[in-house]
Each structure stands twice: as C-alpha cells, then as structure tokens.
C-alpha cells in the first residue's frame, strides 16, 4: 500500500507541478497572484507581465485553455512515444526527473517521501487537481495486483514520465501579444516547435478574417525602424527570443501584399527588365510557366537583379552608390574600374546569417536618398551597429524586387511551399465563407458557437477513434490492470499517451480535449505531494478514486470513461471522504488550495470542464470543474458560462499544434469550417 500511496502522491505532485507551470507561463486567470510570475519560467519576454495584465478575462481564459490543451497534447504525445519502453529500472524511485524538466524549482525537489496517508488527502489540495478532477485518478487504490508487478510498472512509468518531463521542459514557450490591424491585440502562447504558419492558422480562428495568403506576422523594431514579415516556415519563438528585455519590438498581424507577390505576379520579378505595359497583359499561362521554371526545377532560380543602389557607409552618414548584383550565393558589387564579369565581382554579403528588413523613414533617420530602404542584419542584432548593412533604392518597386529576390535566394523552395500551403488554406476558407455567408449573422460571438458545439459534440465524438484506441492502449500499458474491473476508467487516463488526433479537437473541441487534457496533467504526478499535504482540498479526484471502489465498483467503463459518467454519481452519494464532501459544496469556486496556487486551478478546471462534457450530452452541469467528479452538479452554472466560449476556439489551435497536425489538414479545416458555420446559425 505504501507504494501505491507513494505513487499516488507522486501523481498528484506531478499534477501540481504541471498546473504550476501552466500558471507561470500564462497567467492565472482572474486573480493573478504575482507569485506565479515570479516563479519565472523561462520566458524571453519582458513585457509579458504587462501584456498579461492588460488582458481581458476572456483573453485569459482563452489563453489558459490554450495552455492546457497544449500541454496535454504534448504530454500525450510524449507518453505515446515512450510507451514502448517498459523497463523497470530501480533508479526510478530516486529520480526526481520531473523537477529538472520543469523549470519550476520549488515543487520538484521533494521526492516521494511524503507519508502515504497524508499524501492522499494532501493530494486533493493541489491546484492541479482541478484539472485532474475529471480524471479517475484512483487507480492506485483499486489496483491490488501483486505488488511487485505494480512496482515494476510504476517504476517504468515513472521513468517514462521523467523523460517526458525532461523533454517537455526543454520546450520553450512564449506568451506573445500580437497587434491586430484594428489596433486591438490578442495574446497567445507559442511554443518553440510551432512555426509561423501554425500561429497564423491559430490567429485565423481567433479573428475570423478571410484567411487570404497575404496575412502575415510581422516583426517591428522601432529602435532601428525596421520591420519584416516572418516566413511561414520559420519558428516564431526563435526570432522573438532575440529581442532584448526592454525591447519595444512588436508582432503584428497584417495583410502584406508583398509577401507572396512573386507568386501572384512572377513576371514583375523575373521579367522586371521588360516594359511594364507588356508585363501587365501577361497571360496566366505565362505566369505559371515562370513559376514552373524558377521554382519547380532541380534548382531554384533567383531573379537576376542588377542595379545601382545606395549603400550607407559604415559608421558614416553618407551614402555611396554601387552597382550591385544579386546571385543565388549572395549580393555582390562591381568594384570600381572592373567589369561586370562574375569573376571580378566582390561579395558584399551572403545570406546564411542575415535576414532582410524593410527600413522605415530612413530619410530622416539616416539621411538616406529615399525612403525606400532595406537592411540586412543578423537577427540577433537589435541596436545600431556597424554590422548592419543599409541599402537604399530609388523607388519602391526596386526595393521590393531586391527584398523579394533576397528572400528567394535565402529561403529557396520553402517560400514556394509556404505559398502553396497558404493558398490551400485560403481556398478552403473561401469555400466555407461562400457557403456560410447567406446564413451568417454574427459569427464572432462566442456564445452561439458554444451552443452549436453541443450538438457537434455528438457528431464529433462518434467518429473519433480516439476514445477507444486510447483506452485499449492504456490498459495494455497500464501496470495495475486489476483496477480495470473496479475502476477501469481512471487508470487509463493518467497513463494516456495517445494524444487526441487533430480531428477530434476540431470537430468537437470540447469533448475530446477534456479527456485528454486531464490525463495528460495527471501522469506526471510524482512530486507535488509533499508540498501539498496540509491543504486537504479534496478536489474531486481523491474522492472519486476512493469512493468509486467501494461504492461504485463498475463505473461506466467503456465509452464515457474518464470524463463524466461514473464520478458524479459516486461523488454525491459518497460520504466517506468527509473533507471532500464538505469541500465540494463549499469549495466549488475556490476549490484549490489557497497556499499553493490558488489562481491557476480555477482556470484549468474550467477549460477542462468545458472540454470533457462532450461525450455525455448532459454536460452542462458537469462541465465546470468536476466534470468527472461529484461536484459537477453543484456548481455548474457559474463556471460553465465562462468556460464555453474560450475552450472551443482555443482547443482547436492548441491541439493542432500538439498533435503536430501532419495528418488531417484538410479535415481539420473542414471541421473548423463546420464549427464556424454552426456558430453563425
């Protein structure tokens, strides 16, 4: 038993950790305790706090949902990856792996020592519990197979978890405030692995814009008066990490026609020498041929640009004219008195380590001959430096030619692939838009969507293979099979590796997400226990586990599993856990432990709640925190309201991210489209 207890406490601890980390990254929803931020997760952003404070509640909720979904998704993925390993290594017990993984210092250190008894009760207190609540955490107790077996399994699991944690911990995440066209801003979390395309898709869903290919993320540097559009294949976190602490740089979400102009009118770049009249009348067929020639061959062809540009001399205010030439290998210039022959060209720079930026208002700032300037610099340079190259063109057309030409030389075929992806996205969207337009009323309002979703859920759920698959999987992996009889649902969840396929998320954002999320949080548990002991907050979790075995042996195993069915009933009826009962009723709103991380819990809960209900139609009540747990019935209303709006949207994006939406792009888009449509109705 002790082992089990320890395990359990581990679990809870892990959850704790998780939630904490969540809290840090994002910002706890409403009551933001400064503490969270202090915990400092490595965030490259200084103005994070500000931006977070500026956020509206809604935003926070949404953000939170994002975070949770995101974390879960990644964890599940990891779990899935590691499943293969079942090596029971003795080391495990000692392993404080999670701590390392998480940047959080406090929780991690404490190993499992916590007394078994206390652990159980304490576990409840963890804020994380809220999230976990839906989960049938109880497995340990029920399971009474041979201890050795369990032990071995548990150890193996712990290793897995540790590894997961480590991996997960390495993933850097940023909370990014994106300025929209209308001056408003949106905040979202971006992790290291996400590229700009994914972030854009995410924003598309949040903004209901038309998704055309021109939508871009741009980076501005007010100090240097520069800006550039990120390329869709770039990872967003990396360039942002180069910003300085006090940076006033911003990320903008805008339509930038020049981004893919070269694919819309390739003649303007590849035949730029021809007279403009002829270029205007060029046939579509000829455009296509140009693209074929230059982007579809074995080698990408860079427009052969050549012309006199003004170069700002190092450290001086003067600008000097030079005859520059663009080649695939770099920018060259013709030295004085030499011919234009290739062998005489002098290399001005190569593109490996520089990005190209548009300069703004350089006429005033640097006394440039015109305002059509572009700049080449290492992305990490943020201030004036002799290593920045300033070039000035005679007109806007020339400037765009050069900047685009440089991008082609630097990024090659990625650029074209980005365009094709963006085009596809736009096409799918426009189809949807056309259909929906007639009926569309006010698509943006969140509430409608929610309602719409409930019905969806049913649909969405049915098709999903996820529930079944995961379950079976879990069992298999799961060490303590015994529990299955009694409480099949719970164990699986924690173990759950199977990340929800992208589909489910999209179709019925809530239904799926919840289940997975919870589990995800769960598994890691090892640590938190110690910290938590005192606060006996009985988040639903504890109750459910204990209770179920006794009172409700065979909770609804199959379908509903983790999410809702079993817990609620048992909970209510369950007197055993005195604390809990009391807690539940009184606690609903402030369930979490005051001491630890009061703020964070609520959010996760909500999100979780929102998500879980899906399968069971009656979700409304359970959704809130307790989804799985007893509380559901009690507190539903309040929490529910908040939840609904945010989760749906958020979940989608995050899931995609996590799932590494390789697979069902098209499907996911369809789902999104359907959701929106329903929302409109």
């Amino acid at each position, binding site marked *: 038993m002790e082992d089990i207890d320890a395990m359990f406490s581990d679990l809870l601890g892990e959850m704790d950790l998780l939630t904490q980390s969540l809290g840090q990254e994002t910002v706890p929803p409403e009551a933001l305790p400064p503490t969270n931020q202090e915990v400092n997760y490595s965030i490259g952003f200084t103005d994070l706090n500000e931006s977070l404070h500026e956020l509206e509640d809604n935003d926070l909720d949404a953000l939170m949902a994002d975070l949770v979904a995101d974390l879960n998704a990644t964890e599940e993925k990891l779990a899935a990856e*590691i499943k293969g390993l079942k090596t029971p290594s003795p080391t495990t017990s000692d392993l404080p792996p999670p701590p390392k993984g998480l940047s959080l210092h406090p929780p991690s250190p404490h190993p499992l020592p916590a007394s078994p008894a206390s652990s159980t009760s304490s576990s409840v207190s963890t804020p994380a519990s809220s999230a976990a609540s839906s989960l049938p955490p109880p497995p340990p107790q029920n399971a009474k197979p041979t201890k050795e077996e369990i032990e071995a399994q548990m150890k193996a699991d712990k290793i897995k978890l540790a590894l997961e944690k480590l991996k997960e911990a390495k993933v850097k995440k940023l909370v990014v405030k994106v300025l929209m066209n209308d001056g408003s801003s949106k905040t979202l979390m971006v992790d290291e692995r996400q590229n700009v395309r994914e972030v854009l898709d995410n924003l598309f869903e949040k903004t209901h814009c038309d998704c055309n290919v021109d939508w871009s993320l741009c980076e501005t540097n007010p100090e240097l008066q520069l800006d550039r559009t990120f390329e869709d294949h770039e990872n967003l976190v990396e360039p942002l990490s180069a910003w300085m602490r006090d940076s006033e740089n911003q990320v903008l979400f805008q339509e930038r026609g020049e981004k893919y102009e070269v694919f819309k009118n390739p003649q303007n770049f590849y035949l730029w020498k021809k007279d403009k009249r002829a270029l205007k009348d060029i046939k579509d067929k000829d455009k296509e*041929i140009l693209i074929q020639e230059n982007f579809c*061959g*074995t080698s990408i*062809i860079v427009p052969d640009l050549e012309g006199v540009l003004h170069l700002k001399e190092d450290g001086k205010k003067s600008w000097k004219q030079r005859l520059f030439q663009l080649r695939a290998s770099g920018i060259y210039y013709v030295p004085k008195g030499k011919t234009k022959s*290739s062998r005489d060209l002098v290399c001005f720079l190569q593109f490996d380590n520089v990005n190209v930026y548009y300069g703004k208002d350089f006429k005033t700032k640097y006394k440039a001959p015109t305002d059509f300037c572009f700049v080449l610099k*290492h992305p990490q*340079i943020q201030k004036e430096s002799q290593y920045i190259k300033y070039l000035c063109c005679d007109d806007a057309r020339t400037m765009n030619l050069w900047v685009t030409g440089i991008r082609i030389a630097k990024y090659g075929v990625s650029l074209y692939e980005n365009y094709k992806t963006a085009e596809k996205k736009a096409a799918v969207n426009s189809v949807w838009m056309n259909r929906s337009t007639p009926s569309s009323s006010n698509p943006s309002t969140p509430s409608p969507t929610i309602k719409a979703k409930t019905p969806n859920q049913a649909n969405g759920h049915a098709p999903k293979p996820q529930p079944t698959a995961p379950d079976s999987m879990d069992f298999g992996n799961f060490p303590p099979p015994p529990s299955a009889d009694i409480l099949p649902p719970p164990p699986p969840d924690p173990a759950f590796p199977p990340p929800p396929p992208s589909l489910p998320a999209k179709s019925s954002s809530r239904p799926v997400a919840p289940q997975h999320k919870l589990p995800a949080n769960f598994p890691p548990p090892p640590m938190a226990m110690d910290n938590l002991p005192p606060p006996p907050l009985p988040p639903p979790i504890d109750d459910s586990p204990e209770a179920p075995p006794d009172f409700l042996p065979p909770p609804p195993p199959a379908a509903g599993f983790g999410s809702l069915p079993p817990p609620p009933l048992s909970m209510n009826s369950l007197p055993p856990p005195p604390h809990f009962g009391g807690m539940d009723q009184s606690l609903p709103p402030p369930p979490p432990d005051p001491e630890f991380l009061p703020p964070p819990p609520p959010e996760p809960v909500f999100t979780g709640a929102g998500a879980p209900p899906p399968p069971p139609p009656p979700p409304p009540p359970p959704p809130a925190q307790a989804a799985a747990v007893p509380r559901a019935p009690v507190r539903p209303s309040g929490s529910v309201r908040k939840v609904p709006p945010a989760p749906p949207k958020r979940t989608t994006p995050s899931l995609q991210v996590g799932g590494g939406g390789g697979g069902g792009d098209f499907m996911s888009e369809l789902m999104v489209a359907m959701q929106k449509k329903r929302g409109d109705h």
Partner: protein
Amino acid sequence: MAAWDLSVTVEDLGPDTPPVSLSVTSDLHVGGVILKLVEKTQIKRDWSDHALWWEQKQCWLLRTAWSLEKYGIHADARLHFMPQHKPLKLGLPNGITLRLHACYSSPVFQTVMHICRMLNIRHPEELSLLRPIEEKKKKKDKDSTEEIYDLTEVPLSSASRPCLYNGMPAHFADSPQMEAVYKMLSVTQPPPAPEVIAKQYRPASVVDKAHINGRWLDSSRCLMQQGIQENDRLWLRFKYFTFYDIEPKYDVVRLTQLYEQARWAILLEDIDCTEEEMMLFGALQYHISKVSQSEPQMLSSSAAMDDLESALQSLEVKMEGESSSASEMLENMTAPELNDYLKIFRPKRLTLKGYKQYWFKFQDTSISYFKSKEESIGEPIQQINLKGCEVAPDVNMAAQKFLIRLLIPAPEGMNEVYLRCENEQQYAQWMAGCRLASKGKSLADNSYQSEIQSIHSFLAMQKTNSSSHGNAPANDESINTHSLVSPRYHKKYKAKQLTPRILDAYQNVAQLSLTDAVMRFIQVWQALPDFGLSYIVVRFKGSRKDEVLGIAPNRLIRIDLGVGDVVKTWRYNNMKQWNVNWDIRQMAIEFEGNVNIAFSCVTADCKIVHEFIGGYIFMSTRSREKSDVLNEELFHKLTGGHEAL
C-alpha cells in the same frame, strides 16, 4: 530487263580486296542484292547487321524492299557492304574514353538513345554527340597511354535484357571488366591534377565558347552521313540543360556524368562564377571525392542486393530509433562537454592584454570560462552562446598557430572573440564544437566526430601543401586544393591560402551524403546566372557586326559583343513560329506582339541553331505521364528541318 554489273565493296574482306561484281537488273530489290552478295562471298557468318552504303549519295540503302531503280542506282554506283554498328571512341563527360559499338546508320538521335541505354543514362534526349576539339599534338603523344574502357563486347541485343534492380543493365554484371566499366561510369573521378586542368583548352571569351557549339552533330542524320568513320572519336555531352526528373536511385550514371560535366565546366571556366561560388564548388568537389572514396560504392558487384539491403538497414535503424528513444533521451541528459585551458583574446576591446588563459567549458551550444579549473564549479566569468555565430579558422601549421575566430551576434552587434588552442587535437575538437554550436547543434550531435575528422584532414592537407611542393599528393587524404578550382585561382592563391577558404565553404556541406553533395553541386551550378546558355555567333538581319545569340532552356538572348551585355531577351513561350531558309541559311523567328527577328549563323550551321531551339521546345513538352515514352517523332518534327519533313 537488261542485266548490268554492280560493284560492291565488301568491307569484311579487307581494304585491299577488289569490289565484288554482281550481275543485277534494275528491278532487283536491295534485299536480293545482299543475298546475291553474301552467296558470292562464300563466307558463312551472321550478316544481319550489314547493309549497303552508297558512297556517292552518302546514304544507306536500308529499305531492302526497294528496287535499285527506285533508289536510282546505276552501274556507276559505288556501294559498300558493311556492318551498321561499328566501334566508336566515345569521350565521356568525365574525360574518360569508352570504346563501344554505335549505330552508324540510324539518325544520331537514335544512336545516342542506344548508347545511353547501354550506359544506363536515362533521358537520352538531353545528350548528344559532338566532334571533339582537336588536341594539339604535342611532342609526346599521350594517346598511347590513355586508358580506354572497352564495351565493344556487349552484344547488340543486350538492350533487351532486363535491368537489375537498381537499374544497372545486366551486361555490366557479366565480368569483372564490365564491372570496372560500370564503376568508372557511376563513380566520380578523383580531382584532376592542377597541371591537367591548366593544360586543357579554356575558352577565353564568349566567342570562344560559341565555337564549341558548331561541333554538335546533326541529330536527324546518321554518323556515316556526317563523315564519322569507324573508331573515330566523339564526345558524349549533355546538350540540353533541362534535366528532367532526376531520380538519384536510377540515375547514378546520369548524375555522375552530369556532375563531371558541370565540374569541368567550372574548372575550365566555361561558365563564370564568383570567387565565393568557386570556393563552394571546390568544397563540394573535395567532399564528393572524399565520400566516394570512403563510402561503399552505391553500386558494386552486389548491386542487385542493394535495394533489399538498404531497405533492411533503414528498417533496422528505424526500429532502433524507436526502442532507444528513451535511452537516447537519458544520454542527452548527460550531454558531453569539453573542458580545457584555452587562451582568449577580444580584438575589439581596448585592452593591451593580449591572449589570456582561462579554464574553458564547452557545453551544449555555449562556451563559458573561469579563472581556473578549480573555480569552474562556480559562476563563469562569462558565458558565450555560439548559436548563430560565425566561425572562421586561422591556422598556420608551420607556426603552430591554431586560432578559432568567432563572430558572436549580440543585440548591439557582432562581438569578435579569438580562441587560441595549443595543438592540433585540441583545435579540432573545439573547432568542431564551435561549428556545430553555430548551427545550433550540441556536442552530442552525431556529426561531431565526423566534423573533427574533416578538420583533421584539412589540417593534414595544409601540412603536405607546405612541405611537399608540387609533388603528387601522397595519400588520398591530402588533395592539392589547386585541383578543385580553375587555373585563375592557381595564380591568385597558393594552395596553402586556398585551403582555409575552401574549408570555410566546406563547413556548410561537410555533412552531406554523396548523392546530396552531387545534387548540391549541380544545383549550385544551375543557379549560376549564365547556366544553360549555349552561345552561337550570329549576324542579325540589318546589322553589320557579329553578335552572339545565347540559347537557354527558356529563352534566347542577344549579346552585344562590344558591351558584353545582354541587350535583348526573347522567351520561347512568346514565340509564334520559327523558320529556316535553308537556301540562304537564315533563321527567322516570330514572337507575339509582332516581333520578328532574323539572323544568319556564323560559328555554327543554322541546322544546329534550329535544332537547339526545337530541342528545347521539345524538352518543355515532356510531362510526367508520358515520361517513359520518348516521342521521337515529335523531336524530329521540331528539329529536323526540311530533310525530316
């Protein structure tokens, strides 16, 4: 019908044997003539490849059902009876000569197809034959020593034999000699000695480059018709620079020969490039030669097994990868690091201190340093993240100088930092670490060891360069860097100076596989602005001076010889029609928008120009669905001129 005497020279009887005289009538068909002839010679052998060649008319009498009358043959006709397939010496793009049986009676287009099938080169329409540049016969005739690979043993029917799994024609598996031939075809040649490069003809101007294009054979006529005799020498080259559907798996020979042609084009400055590009080409050549020596050949005698083996291998790797992911992760937790005393110097700081020694620690992608080893547990004096930095070597073996120059990006600009190592070993390790870190990889990356290796081999190169002057490289590790660049740079730089520059470019390609490196070379070549241009000196109608017409895969350009600049560009997709006036040898082309140009050709027959343009248009009609079947008829229609129509 009256009988008359027809005299036929039978080649197989020897040059001194007088012609055989046959009594024939005008309505006898060619087949009958041959039958009579064979009976008369009394030789029993396979005559199936033989045919009659009409010397005066320069044509083959291949339609055996046609009568002599129909062919217009009279008693004064001198006919030759000889095989249609004869040995031909073929200079390959890699500079090696091959002797094989080629068809002297079918259009060159078909002859090339047969040759390519024999050599296993797909898409033969991109290649053609040309007359070689006469080598100035120098005092010592090197021809005697030249190695000639012989393929004449390959039976003519071999084309019908199925290919092996990797696409290697079955006849190459027949004997060790044949395998050696295939190896020559499919493996890149080692870098040539600098003297060899220097000795070769190099075009000095666009006009020079134009002359080579006057040498292409006419695709619609046969070898005999173009005066090519048995055992003559021709070059096989890629003529149309649109390489369709390159698939490394099946195109081993094609890719290798393409690479060789590109390499020589670069080395002989047939195509211009900048110094930076030359260094990259040099680095790629170095890498390719190194890898192709060390890597087990893509096709050895067990080539047939390759597919299966590689499939198994990749499967193994996959499984390993899956099962070991966790242990790998654990390994990653204990990332390797370097610890040592090094000297550091910051040129930018206004200190007079010079190099100062610290205890350095290389971990992940950053370097930190401490006052001493003992204090390395505490906070470092400074930590430098190398991600995104520029790394340059500054090494002088003779002076035992091992310097790593780092240019480290920071918000304020780039910071220069020099690290000085004590010895070669230390330098190789730290340099390799810096290189990887600059690309965001840690020491745990599996390319670390090979990076160290390549640094060592480059150091070795510098050693031999400085010690042994001009001596042939002793071992394969040390290549004279002059072998990798055009002669222009032989004069400009000493090999020793070239080494670091090539090494610099080398860091970006050192991890490429052989195939990838070859592909990269070809891609960089294709990305050169002048790529794919074939020049012809022409005189435009109404113009008094010679100008140069550049023919590219997608356009024609007009180059003013005086300025050396492109004055005009016409794209094929705007072309409405083109005509050849065979009488006055003039090409006339009409483009959309009422643009008409006309020119006569100075350095090449207008048939060659016509064929170039038609050929490129043919190339653009190829599409994936039809890629297997070569539409020969269309090719001839587009390139043939009046004879073909």
